[in-house]
């Protein structure tokens, strides 16, 4: 008999009646609870993650997830793959400048056929950079020990969504994830907000790069309030949007090495960090009234002031907490839970880990374990994690294709609202049957996951063994009689894998 797990007092997970009803008498119920906790806090349970939580106990494990170390601590084979990606060595600013030059050269060609070919080559080069970013993210989702951080990285990217196929955003994506989002995924919301504001991917995507005094573009100003902070219906007015747009004038992108030509009195106001530029010559220095606050014309300091106001507004605490709870708990998270999370947000001045801790300690969270419908990215990543555990895949292409077929491709949501987090977006008939096809592909072969994306690379075919220790230790207990009955009728190991990955239980986390 294995040592049974005791979930600590901080968690105090109660076994729900529903869980008991489907739990066979022989099983230790807390193992099912541990499995459910793993499936919610990570990208999907693996034998190794189950062993880790067993070794140190769920409280310490959760504390580690909430406060991971500064280093990624990725397995060496994973780190080596990431280091080998061109985007890991070439700085983003240089990449963007080089690709812009390639585009310019292509457009300068006079022969129409040559021009078309050169433009295609440029597009392909841009796409390659975004695919590398997706590879890096997928490898971390699959193998990083800091699973909550990686999950929240996806969440925050989606919250501050940019679309890779707009303009020249593709070469900016990897840097946006790595430098604007990930470092703050469990940090302070205010820092995250400013990091996204200063990133060229966001400034390009929501057009603030075009926002200048007397040439106002309100797009970003509106979305900051509507999507990123206060939330729609929080009581701000069109006038507030206009005023924030004025505050944001001059916040843009500069790919040129030389500083813009400025009058001497404005030169001290110029800010450049990488491609980010605050250009005082494009800024509206008039006073503004934003959300009832008078903001004196002062350059980029106005932006800092506006972000402080937005980040500390109770509506932001509510909106962000609602979003996190929707992602982590249910389509319609309990209002009382959201209220407590929002209170944590405010008390901690927007400490994301504190908000998550409030969530994890709540009875609503515990009661919801095992019930959240997986969106496609969760579905695919959790399948590959369960199938291969620590065995490192050598090609993320199949994973990118699977999530793309399920219409949740990395960085591929056109509109700033991000992918829907509600189940209705992902459980339509077409979605389900495609999901089962993917279950079969993952369950019955390696499908190119172990064939490096290089000419002449050898494959390592085979199929995964899902009927493993983790299955017997905990997954089996969570299955309903109809699911067990179907599994009993499997005609091969591959068939059994396919059915397990197709089961209603595996659709939820």
């Amino acid at each position, binding site marked *: 008999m294995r040592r049974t797990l005791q979930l600590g007092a901080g968690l105090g997970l109660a076994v729900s009646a529903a869980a008991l009803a489907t739990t066979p008498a022989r099983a230790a119920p807390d193992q099912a609870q541990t499995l459910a906790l793993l499936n919610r806090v990570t990208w999907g349970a693996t034998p190794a993650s189950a062993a880790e939580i067993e070794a140190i106990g769920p409280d310490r494990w959760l504390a580690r997830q909430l406060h991971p170390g500064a280093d990624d601590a990725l397995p060496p084979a994973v780190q080596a793959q990431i280091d080998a990606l061109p985007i890991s060595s070439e700085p983003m600013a240089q990449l963007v400048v080089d690709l812009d030059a390639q585009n310019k050269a292509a457009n300068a060609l006079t022969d*129409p056929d040559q021009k078309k070919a050169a433009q295609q080559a440029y597009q392909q080069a841009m796409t390659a950079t975004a695919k590398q970013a997706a590879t890096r993210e997928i490898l971390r989702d699959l193998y990083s020990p800091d699973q909550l951080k990686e999950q929240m990285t996806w969440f925050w990217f989606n919250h501050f969504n940019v679309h890779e196929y707009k303009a020249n955003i593709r070469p900016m994506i990897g840097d946006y994830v790595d430098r604007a989002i990930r470092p703050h995924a469990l940090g302070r919301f205010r820092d995250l907000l400013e990091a996204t504001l200063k990133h060229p991917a966001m400034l390009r995507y929501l057009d603030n790069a075009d926002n200048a005094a007397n040439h106002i573009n309100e797009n970003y100003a509106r979305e900051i309030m509507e999507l990123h902070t206060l939330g729609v219906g929080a009581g701000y007015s069109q006038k507030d949007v206009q005023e924030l747009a004025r505050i944001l004038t001059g916040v843009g992108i500069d790919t040129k090495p030389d500083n813009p030509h400025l009058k001497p009195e404005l030169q001290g106001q110029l800010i450049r960090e990488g491609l980010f530029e605050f250009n005082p010559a494009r800024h509206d220095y008039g006073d503004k009234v934003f959300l009832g606050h008078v903001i004196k014309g002062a350059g980029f300091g106005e932006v800092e002031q506006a972000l402080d106001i937005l980040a500390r507004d109770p509506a932001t605490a509510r909106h962000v907490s609602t979003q996190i709870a929707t992602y982590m708990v249910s389509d319609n998270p309990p209002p009382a839970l959201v209220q407590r999370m929002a209170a944590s947000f405010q008390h901690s001045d927007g400490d994301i880990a504190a908000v998550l801790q409030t969530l994890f300690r709540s009875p609503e969270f515990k009661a919801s374990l095992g019930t959240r419908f997986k969106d496609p990215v969760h579905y695919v990543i959790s399948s590959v994690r369960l199938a291969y555990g620590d065995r490192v895949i050598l090609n993320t292409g199949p994973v990118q294709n699977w999530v793309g077929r399920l219409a949740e491709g990395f960085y591929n949501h*056109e509109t700033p609202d991000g992918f829907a987090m509600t189940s209705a977006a992902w459980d339509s*008939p*077409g979605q*389900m049957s495609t999901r089962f096809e993917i279950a079969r592909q993952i369950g019955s072969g390696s499908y190119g996951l172990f064939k490096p994306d290089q000419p002449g690379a050898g494959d390592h075919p085979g199929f995964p063994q899902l009927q493993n220790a983790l299955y017997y230790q905990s997954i089996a207990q969570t299955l309903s009689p*109809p699911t067990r009955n*179907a599994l009993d009728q499997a005609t091969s190991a591959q*068939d059994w894998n*396919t059915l397990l990955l197709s089961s209603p239980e595996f659709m939820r986390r």
Partner: protein
Amino acid sequence: MLRRHFIASAAAAFPAIAAGHVWAAPQAKTRLLVVFLRGAYDAANVVIPVGADFYYQSRPTIAVPKPDPANPNSALVLDADWGLHPALKDSIYPLWRQKQIAFVPFAGTDDLTRSHFETQDTIELGQPLQGPRDYGSGFMSRLATQLSGAQPIAFTDQLPLTFRGGGAVPNMSVNVSGKPGIDDRQAKLIEQMYQGQPLATSVSEGFQVRDEVYRSVSAEMVAANRGAVSPKGFELSARRIARLMKTQFNVGFVDVGGWDTHVNQGGAQGYLAGRLGELGRGLAGYADEIGPDDWNNSVVVVISEFGRTFHENGDRGTDHGHGSVYWVMGGKVNGGRMLGRQAAVTQASLNQNRDYPVLTEYRALFGGLFQRLYGLDGARLEAVFPQAPPVDLRLV
């Protein structure tokens, strides 16, 4: 086969009650397919203002020659002012002669961003331009909720914006090439696992749609084995869609890409002619495959996010413009006519000196069409297209 009917909201489930009178939702009797040409097709080189010298002055290298029976690379006569691209000679032109297709020039949206994404979204959502957008509510979804017996489907990999909101609209690309990987035995076992679960209907309907698509595919394979020429590309998809629309669905959407012709688009021949030929074969194939009886009960509307610059650019292509030309086809369409308000094609009539103006707003056009097709009353039309009074072009 009895399909689950689409019930998107309580509003659709219960008949509307007004002034003490109960009206049931109108029946979705006509089969409606909306074809979205994504990328903004160059309408002026497809439905061509052959009567305007200004057209020939504006497009020195890409213009399609005036109708000339001796020249196979010249435009086909539509009326005194307009001609049709010769790549559509054997597909769309016969439908014009049979008066089963009408063109609506100067059609589109008032959205002037000239951004593909923005304008596609605008059209798919069908909401007023002013005010915040609700990305969770597309106009075809709202249409489906206003009809009883609506069986909507998107023949696309992703559920398009226009079908967002309300109920679960199935989406399935018909570009499948082979047998589904999940076989019948596995499908049955999977359905058993979901019995009594909330997703049971979604799962079984998913297998059903998948099987319907596959049956269409295997029917083609049998035909091909008997020596029939297999259609390719969009024609293949369109014929499959026709079979599914004939038997299972009545509110459909499909998109066709590849129209963003900034560079080297060609004239009577070349890139755009190739795309058009494929589109025309697809649409004619749709009419053929659905059969004469069902074609009489079908309407296909071809739309695009905007037109392109009237003058060709320095790269023998065209850039983002404004007004487009929409197509409305079907057995009972009042075709063989150019419909809607028109303007003389001159420099002075161009919008911002650059492109066609929009004289028929797409929501008014669709509203007028839906009024005639389904008998939607004012309140129901308002629900589909808020603040957009319909324009009756007598399309059907």
